[in-house]
């Protein structure tokens, strides 16, 4: 299987009473009260260093993403980070996984085609092209996209980008949202016909259908671990079976928070405060921001109200601020502990979810730089080697850059 380190690039020093004092971590946290540009400069550099350290330590891929107006994770243009990472990892067999540019808010979407083209060229064909729909906070509140149009706009942007990469000739794009008289993208990616495309989702049927229709990798990105994830991924694999599609585990991705220490007890001591910070501050978002009316299409809206999905999600979220380390681990929101504990739990998770592309969040909330490097180090040395053969005997990862599909050989001397 392939394992990538995901980084959100959060604000690491929010005040202790942040969630009592402020309405939301996203959209309206006041920069002038909370933001410190000097500190943020340090965060960006730490983030890049942490991802590059993971790459040197043998991880298969490094992931960044796009979000706006928040202290949860703020790389407003993930391709700025991606371009540093692509350059710094040249010579390493590591994928640059952009999870990625938000399609409906990038105008014109050929911009994504161009920037991803640049990244694939700079990295020598190591790009994974993530194509997110974007959260409601980003797309509708920060970028002003009409909620009921966000998904339709996404589909059009996606079709335009793929055509821009693959069309033999210059073409005119006469779409509903975008009209471009002469599309002729420079540069195009090295990978042919296109870099692998990953579609992040939160379990909606519309996204499964979309991923299946285009043969993209579907990535379930959430912070509630494999126990909650099981319900969604079982649904996904059932959907794949019903459509008669090959159940290749590599057509699915999953994100997991992971914290490793020498012992279980030490993990609690080192990570508890940062995990609590993440769930209570980084995810301090009012429900109204998550689902402005129209963000969900009618079918998904009906489904989530009639099955009580929204209600149960928010009830669960409300309980989390009271969780202790043990609760996070028992419920597997975070897989944390000694290397042995983590590899057993992670192996079970990957098998149960049937996931071939695992993303691990190794920097969590307020974690300082040193501790992050220690987590990366223990994970890549003591956990990853025990998992990396999973699925490889039977399946090929067709959603990974072709030149990186073999098992990665790492010379630790590189560190």
């Amino acid at each position: 299987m392939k394992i990538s380190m995901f980084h959100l690039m959060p604000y690491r020093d929010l005040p202790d009473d942040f969630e009592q004092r402020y309405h939301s971590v996203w959209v309206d946290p006041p920069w002038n009260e909370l933001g410190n540009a000097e500190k943020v400069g340090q965060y960006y550099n730490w983030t890049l260093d942490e991802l590059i350290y993971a790459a040197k330590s043998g991880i298969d891929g490094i992931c960044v993403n796009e979000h706006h107006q928040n202290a949860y994770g703020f790389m407003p243009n993930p391709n700025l980070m991606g371009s540093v990472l692509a350059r710094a990892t040249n010579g390493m067999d590591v994928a640059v996984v952009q999870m990625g540019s938000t399609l409906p808010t990038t105008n014109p979407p050929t911009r994504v085609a161009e920037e991803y083209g640049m990244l694939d060229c700079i990295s020598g064909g190591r790009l994974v092209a993530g194509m997110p729909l974007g959260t409601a906070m980003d797309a509708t509140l920060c970028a002003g996209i009409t909620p009921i149009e966000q998904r339709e706009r996404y589909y059009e942007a996606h079709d335009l980008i793929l055509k821009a990469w693959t069309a033999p000739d210059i073409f005119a794009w006469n779409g509903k949202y975008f009209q471009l008289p002469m599309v002729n993208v420079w540069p195009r990616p090295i990978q042919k016909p296109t870099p692998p495309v990953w579609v992040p989702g939160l379990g909606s049927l519309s996204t499964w259908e979309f991923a299946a229709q285009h043969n993209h990798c579907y990535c379930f990105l959430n912070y509630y671990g494999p126990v909650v994830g099981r319900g969604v991924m079982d649904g996904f694999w059932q959907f794949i079976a019903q459509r008669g599609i090959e159940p290749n585990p590599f057509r699915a991705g999953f994100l997991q928070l992971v914290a490793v220490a020498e012992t279980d007890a030490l993990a609690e001591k080192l990570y508890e405060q940062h995990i609590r910070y993440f769930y209570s501050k980084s995810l301090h978002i009012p429900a109204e921001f998550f689902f402005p009316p129209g963000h969900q299409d009618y079918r998904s809206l009906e489904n989530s109200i009639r099955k009580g999905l929204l209600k149960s999600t928010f009830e669960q979220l409300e309980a989390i601020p009271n969780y202790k380390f043990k609760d996070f681990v028992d419920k597997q929101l975070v897989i944390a502990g000694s290397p042995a504990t983590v590899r057993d739990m992670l192996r079970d998770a990957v098998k149960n979810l049937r996931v071939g592309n695992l993303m691990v969040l190794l920097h969590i909330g307020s974690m300082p730089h040193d501790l992050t490097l220690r987590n990366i180090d223990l994970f890549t040395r003591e956990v990853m080697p025990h998992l990396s053969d999973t699925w490889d005997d039977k399946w090929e990862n067709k959603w990974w850059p072709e030149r990186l599909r073999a098992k990665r050989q790492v010379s630790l001397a590189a560190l």
Partner: protein
Amino acid sequence: MAVVHERTLSVWENKIKPKVQVAGSGPPVVFLHGAYGLTWDPFLDELAKSFTVYAPEHPGTTWGDPDGIKPLDNLWDLVLYYDEIFDQLGLHNPAVVGHSFGGMVAAEIAASYPQRVSKLVLLCPIGLWRDDTPVKNWMVLPMDEVVKAAFHDPNGPLAQQMLTLPEEETAQHDMQIRLTWALACTGKFIWPIPDKGLKKRIHRIQSPTLLVWGKSDKLVPPVYAQEFANRIAGARIAMIDHAAHVPQLEQLGQVAPLVRDFLAS
């Protein structure tokens, strides 16, 4: 209570099938509802005593026709769509009463087709914008805050009724879906700021116009009454005490006769 008949129309090349509530007798009055969908209420009952009231549902908000929103891309389409609705209802130049979002639509119709609207009543309409007094974005407010902003007495029975969901589960889900989708569909024409160019067109309105505003309106603050009146020749303003964004229900006894007399004059 008036006997209300429900008609289903088929418009826009039969792609949209809105329901229209019709009641009363007398000269025709079209009522355009606000962002939360159509509810036949005592204000419409009062109007139906003197007029034939036609209350169409905005596209997509009709139960059973959620895709009715899809064929219309923008406000221009929506105005043309109402031109077709008027034709189908056989209304040459009815009086039009619009509330909140419906007020904006009514003003747009009257500005696009000055001859098609005989009289115009705008109840706390949206459609204009002042940076110093923004209109609240109700699509991202929790319901209890909407209620606080929309009602003069947020603890009164009218306001509380809006916060009360039916007990039976299916009915409760139906209502949540209906409200959310009504906001989604009407939001298509106003997101993220309900200023879509009416200020450039509003001078074309020729019909006698009455503006009714609750003095306590915190969703669309009362300063907007003057903004509208300044742009519509001869417009009258009625500011209503002890009312906010729903003056026609909060002060039914005062507003219903006011509107009736204006329409009848």
